[in-house]
């Protein structure tokens, strides 16, 4: 899906968002454009500013500078009935029954309680949690309580769903269920925006991503655009691991057993192939792979971190 789309087709449009806490700048000029109907990932390490950005988008806290429009509204609470939000720090009333908890979350978004209870039963049954409908939240496992909260986030059928680290705390089985749920929402036309520090989820689910590091967004665009930020990788296996043909390999070539890994040369693969054949390298296999989102993330966020004064040590960790 195309990024940076202007106009009413944007579910979220943020310009220059800034948030400071006691002199510390947590978010520093963030721009975001989330198209309607997109599955949008905000990728970043812990402490990068993801949660603060989401809180500003939702109107939980006000930005110190910048502007945001959510579903066309300048004040997020004006469209709260069309938004579903799952915070990173999950919270439900421990004494509430699962059905009541879901209905209450719906009521906060303007859904009448009776309708909320009906939908809560329906959702719990559909997601295999019908047996827990009348159990108190404190009687549920952490994972189950989290699923109940996710259902509460969706009970009022929002047009925009914002999930802060939705996969944390879920086991592999339930992570898969959540991924399917997000895909289902996208198929229904719901815009889903979620933050994560696990690249795999974003890579599997997202049309567009924003990479956030040190409170800044060095990249926002499609997943393909992010991957194209770094050259494609060549993986070569030869019968003869050494020989004169090695001079044809680029300088960044790294050897792993009988394999060589290096970036695709600017001139393409043909001159290299010719040199290998002429040098009798004995090619067993050669593949050209597009960079993964993880590699793209490291390249993009690492460069940004290098520019930031306060994240020098973190940059080393990434590299």
């Amino acid at each position, binding site marked *: 899906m195309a990024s940076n789309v202007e106009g009413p087709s944007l579910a979220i449009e943020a310009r220059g968002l800034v948030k400071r806490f006691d002199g510390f700048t947590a978010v520093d000029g963030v721009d975001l454009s989330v198209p309607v109907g997109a599955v949008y990932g905000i990728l970043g390490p812990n*402490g990068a500013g993801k949660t603060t950005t989401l809180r500003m988008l939702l109107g*939980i806290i006000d930005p110190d500078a910048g502007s945001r429009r959510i579903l066309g509204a300048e004040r997020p609470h004006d469209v*709260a009935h069309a938004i579903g939000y799952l915070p990173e720090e999950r919270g439900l009333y421990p004494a509430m029954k699962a059905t009541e908890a879901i209905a209450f979350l719906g009521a906060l978004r303007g859904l*009448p309680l009776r309708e909320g209870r009906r939908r809560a039963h329906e959702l719990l049954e559909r997601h295999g949690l019908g047996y827990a409908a009348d159990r108190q939240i404190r009687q549920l496992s952490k994972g189950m309580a989290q699923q109940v909260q996710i259902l509460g986030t969706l009970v009022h059928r929002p047009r925009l769903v914002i999930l802060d680290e939705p996969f944390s705390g879920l086991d592999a089985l339930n992570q898969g269920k959540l991924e399917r749920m997000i895909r289902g929402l996208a198929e229904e036309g719901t815009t889903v925006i979620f933050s994560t520090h696990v690249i*795999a989820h974003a890579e599997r689910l997202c049309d567009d991503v924003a990479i956030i590091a040190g409170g800044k967004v060095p990249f926002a665009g499609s997943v393909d655009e992010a991957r194209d930020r770094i050259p494609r990788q060549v993986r070569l296996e030869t019968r003869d691991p050494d020989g004169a043909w090695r001079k044809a390999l680029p300088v960044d070539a790294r050897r792993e057993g009988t394999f060589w890994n290096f970036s695709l040369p600017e001139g393409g693969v043909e001159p290299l192939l010719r040199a290998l054949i002429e040098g009798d390298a004995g090619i067993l296999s050669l593949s050209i792979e597009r960079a993964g989102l993880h590699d793209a993330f490291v390249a993009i966020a690492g460069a940004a971190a290098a520019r930031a004064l306060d994240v020098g040590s973190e940059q080393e960790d*990434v590299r």
Partner: protein
Amino acid sequence: MNGRLSVLAAAWVVARRDFTAILFSRSFFFFLLGPLFPVLIAVLAGSLGSRVDASQERPVLGIAMSVADADALERTRARLAPVLDEELPELLVIRRLAKGESYDPGEALALRKVKTAAILSGSLEKPVLTGPGGLIEAWRGPVSMLAAQARSGAEIAYPAVALKPVARSSATERKGRFATAQGAQTLLFLLTMMLAGMVLSNLVEEKGNKIIEVLAAAVPMDAVFLGKLFAMLGISLVGIATWAATLGLLWLGGGISPERLPDPAVGWPLLIALGVVYFAMAYLLLGSVFLAIGSMATTVREVQTLSMPVTMAQLMVFFFASFAMTQPGSAVEIAAVLVPFSSPFAMLARAAQEPALLPHVLAIGWQMLWVALLVRGGARLFRSRVMKSGPAGKTRRRSRWSLRRP
């Protein structure tokens, strides 16, 4: 199906949840039982006190006089007992002195030769009381009367006095109304302090449960603030109604007629109605301050630290209102009525003492204005602080990259 909620509608959703959750919780049952403990302690202490009182022997006055004087005193005491028994000291002849015999009562008491509280010596014409200062001071009159009667030896007929009690005089009415004012003011203070503190613990618990962010994302913070404040007001009124009903039943069951209570100036029904209104005002004023404090605190310890000055200030306000009550119509009373936090207390005391109703209308209007201002200010502070007060340094902590490979 769902639409945008107004601030009041959102506040209603929050208040309804809080109200029902607290009402049907185990803690509410204990909350209702709360006042029972001080009452129980007071009853036990009172009963213990009266037992101790009853177990103490009545002090006895020893007589060390000539035979004739001692006998005359005993006879007179016996003759006066039917009409003045309680007022007269118990007498015990410890020594009938022979003519010319001397006796030192001071030495007898100091060396504990006798077990009486004091000793009457000398003669009927010149009686001498020896003993502890307070006691002999109290016995001076009765002993003088006993000596005079014993000396005259005349039989005096004491006529039966017919009693015609009246409900109250203007003096007893003033005293009664003052007592009612004092009681109403103290009750209002205790209820306000106890219940306004509850709103604080409720908020801190919610911050601990991480629910506050869910609420903050869905509805404006003003609605969360109002919802919590009014839910706790509702709970407070349920609690007060329960306590009042229980107390009323016990009172009536104990056979105490309402007529025996001193009437307040505005009458009981109006005083109770005004009490409810002034409680609501005092609660909303203090609750707003406590909620604003709660928004800044993250732990119970922080709450205690932050709320201590407010509690102390409220105590001062109570003392101020109590002092003002003793000077109706003075500048001090007017000041107590004008200061928003003491106004409900001062006005409730006034309702017990003065029948005029117009000042209450004005005072309630004045207090409502301050409630609106404080609720608004509190909500603003709440909104700006409640989502900032995470664990110290959380936002500053730049964690190491925890990026996981696919």
